[in-house]
Structures are given as C-alpha cells and as structure tokens.
C-alpha cells in the first residue's frame, strides 16, 4: 500500500466516524426507541381478542415485512411530496426505520409475552391487579428477558440498514465514505474502511447484549 493511500485512509477516518456519531448512531437509537413503542402497541393489538384490532395489527406486520425497507424509505421521501406532503431527510428516515422496527419487533414481543406462563397472569389477578397492571409489573419484565436476544438482532440489523438513509441524502457514515470515495476515486479502500467502522459498532453492540442478558438472568436458576 502506498503512502498516499494510507494518508487518505487516515484523513477520511474522522469524517467517517463523525458520520457514525452524528448520523448512524443517533438515527439507529432514535428509530429503535420509537420502533419499540410501536412494536409494543402492535403486539398488544395482535393479542387482542377483538378481531378487528388484531386484524389491523396483522395487516401492518404483513405490509412491513412484505415490502423492502428501501421501498418504504422511498415512498416516504420521494413519494409523499407528489401528494403534497414534504418530509425532510432526517424525519423521513426516522419514520421509515421506526415503522419498520415496529413491524419486526412486534412479533418478537408478542412471542415473548406468550412465553410467560398463564399462572403469572393469574397470580397478578388474585393479588388484585388489573390486566394492565399485571402486564406492566409481572408479564413485561419477564418477557423482556426472553426478547433481548432477538431484539438485539433487530437492533444490529437496523444499525446496518441506516446506510440506506444515504440514498435520501442523510449525512451518515456510509454517505461520508461515498463522498470521499467519489472525490478520491479510491472506492475499494474507502468502502472497506466504512465496513470496518460498521463492524466495530456491531461488535460493541454484541458485547452490550451479553451484559444485558447477564443482568436479566440474575433471577433464573443456572
């Protein structure tokens, strides 16, 4: 590797990491947080005994999982303006990603809620709790433990998927790499550098996952 390439990699490192810090990471965190709220709502709707309510949730999940994320992103950013709704790049990306997480995580949360034994609901009722109280204080804490591994997968996928936001002009990690690559014509080096930064972020997330799992496992026999 020649000297100038090294130099380029070093000089591009800060802008790329900057793109991660000001773009990729906040985009992923915000979308995931909003997505979990949507997912919990959709999961509870899906568990409803009212047919119409669970039907709506079912259709939502089906649409989200049945269409590409890139298409969802384009519908919001490039599609909506043609019916008079203009959404800026950042809000567009956050809306698309959180709706997407909402659909995928809803099934994870639903399964986790169903995995808690029925006797736990009954114990909540017999000490006088309402359905909502039992859900929040008894069922969800136990469901959380079960759902950490699959939700971590969802989050790690999301971090990588935020690179799609580069296509709707959000300045994040990958867009920074693209711009420098186009300018310097060193595509291989810059894209591998971007890949390495994504990988490091995901390594950190994986170890955060193990810490969280250990913490939530403290009340379970080993």
């Amino acid at each position, binding site marked *: 590797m020649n000297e100038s390439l090294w130099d380029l990699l070093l000089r591009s490192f800060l802008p790329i990491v900057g793109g991660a810090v000001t773009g990729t990471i906040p985009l992923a965190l915000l979308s995931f947080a909003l997505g979990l709220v949507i997912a919990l709502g959709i999961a509870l709707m899906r568990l409803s005994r009212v047919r119409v309510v669970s039907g709506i949730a079912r259709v939502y999940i089906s649409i989200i999982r049945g269409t590409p994320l890139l298409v969802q992103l384009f519908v919001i950013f490039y599609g909506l303006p043609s019916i008079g709704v203009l959404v800026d790049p950042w809000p567009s990306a956050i809306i698309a990603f959180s709706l997407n997480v909402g659909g995928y995580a809803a099934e994870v949360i639903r399964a986790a809620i169903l995995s808690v*034994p029925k*006797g*736990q609901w*009954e*114990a909540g*009722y*017999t*000490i*006088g*709790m*309402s359905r909502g*109280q039992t859900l929040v*204080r*008894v069922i969800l*804490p*136990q469901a959380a*433990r079960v759902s950490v591994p699959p939700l971590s997968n969802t989050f790690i996928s999301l971090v990588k998927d935020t690179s799609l936001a580069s296509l709707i002009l959000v300045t994040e990690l990958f867009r920074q790499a693209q711009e420098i690559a186009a300018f310097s014509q060193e595509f291989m080096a810059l894209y591998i550098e971007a890949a390495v930064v994504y990988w490091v972020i995901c390594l950190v997330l994986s170890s955060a996952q193990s810490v969280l799992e250990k913490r939530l496992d*403290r*009340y*379970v*026999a080993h």
Partner: protein
Amino acid sequence: MSPTDPLAPAPLDAPIEAPLLVARGIRKSFGDVEVLKSIDLTVPRGNVVALIGPSGSGKTTVLRSLNGLEVPEAGTVEFAGGDTVDFAERPTKRQLASLRDRSAMVFQQFNLFPHRTVLENVIEGPVQVQKRPKAEATADARALLERVGLGAKADAYPFELSGGQQQRVGIVRALALKPQLLLFDEPTSALDPELVGDVLDVIRELATEGWTMVLVTHELTFASHVADTIVFMDGGVVVESGPPSDVLQNPREPRTKQFLHRLLDR
C-alpha cells in the same frame, strides 16, 4: 391474638352469623364438557371447607369460580356485606375485582413472580394494589415471613428456594393482602413428599387462628383434621358434604365410599 398481629384475619363488616360466602348454582362447561352441574357451596365465617374428589371432578374449577379466574356460565357468588355477582349476566370488571379484593389464592404451582425477591413478591399486592405505605407493608411482610420460618430468605429470589419454601412464600403473599377468604388450590400436590409437612403445618396454624379457607386437596388425613366441612365432588356435582366425621368416617353415598376405599387401600 393481638389486633396488630399480621396473621390475624381482617375485621369483618357484616353480622357474625351470616356465612362469609355463599355460592349458588355454579355451572361451567369447557367446550361440550359440562364440568360443573349446578354447585352450591356455603362457607361459614372462620370455617375451613375442604373440597375433595377424584381428578376431573371439578373441585379446582369450583375454587377458581369463587374469585373469577374461571367465569362460570351461570350461578351466583355472594360475600357477606358485598354485592352478589351473578355470572349469568357477564360480570363487570368491578364485580370480579370485588371478589378478588376479598379473597387471596395459593396455587398448586406457587406462581411466585420469578423476577422479584421474596419480600417484593409479598409486598407487591399491598403496595401496588392496596396502596399501603411501603414501610408498613414491608414490616408486616417481614413479620409474616418470620412466622413461617423464612425471615432469612426475604432477599432471595424464588429460584433459590425449595418447593416447600416457595409455597410458604405463596401463602405469605396471600396473607399479606389481609383477605377475608383464603383459597388453596392443591397447595402440596407439586411438592416432594418430605416438604409437604412444613406447608401443611402453616395451613393448620392458620385454621386454628380462625382464618376462613376453602381448600382443594388430596391430603385426606390432613383434611379430616383441619376441615369443619368436607365436600366430596364427583363428575361435576357435590355428592356428599358434612363434617369429616360423617363424610370421611361414615360416608352415606356409594361413590364416596368407593373413592375413600380406593385411596385408603393404597
């Protein structure tokens, strides 16, 4: 027994002569199977009523109807000084809540909250539902745990306890609510034989202290000692009921005799 004794039954607001609970005409089907065919049950204040009978006789379903964990198709449950809940008209949330406010249940599988410590399990209802001050609920809980020999386990998680210890926590969790009525659903059936004794001792003590209890059990010897009334059920009906000296020692009905013979011959 002093009035501040945490094991003392809650004071009652109705005249002392009336039975605490009267259930009438309880009917319940699961699909095509009619598991309860018009059950009547009277629980006098301070009495222990034991429901016995072969598996599938409906005794657990009767117990679970008394606090609305099962909603029967028909029948009424009436607590002294409370509304009558008529299951023929769909009971409201408020009505089910009133049944559950007056009773507490001990489960066969304990059903402790695994993510909370022993102490947290016990104070959950008093603090979150009854809105009692946490310090007061904690002091009561510790005293109750001490009474059943688990004072040192207050900060343990349920998985760290033996089955017998877990069930004693289950009983304390029920007592901490200061209910008028204690419901026991086969409280020793999931326990190893050597752990049954500790749990039965606690229940026996509660009986002598005057708690009103309905108990589903297979422990006939125990039932004959603690129960004021034995209710023998089979096939969704009450076959025979009365004091243990009648039902267990001198049963009138052939089905009761047959059931007792089968158990005593083992």
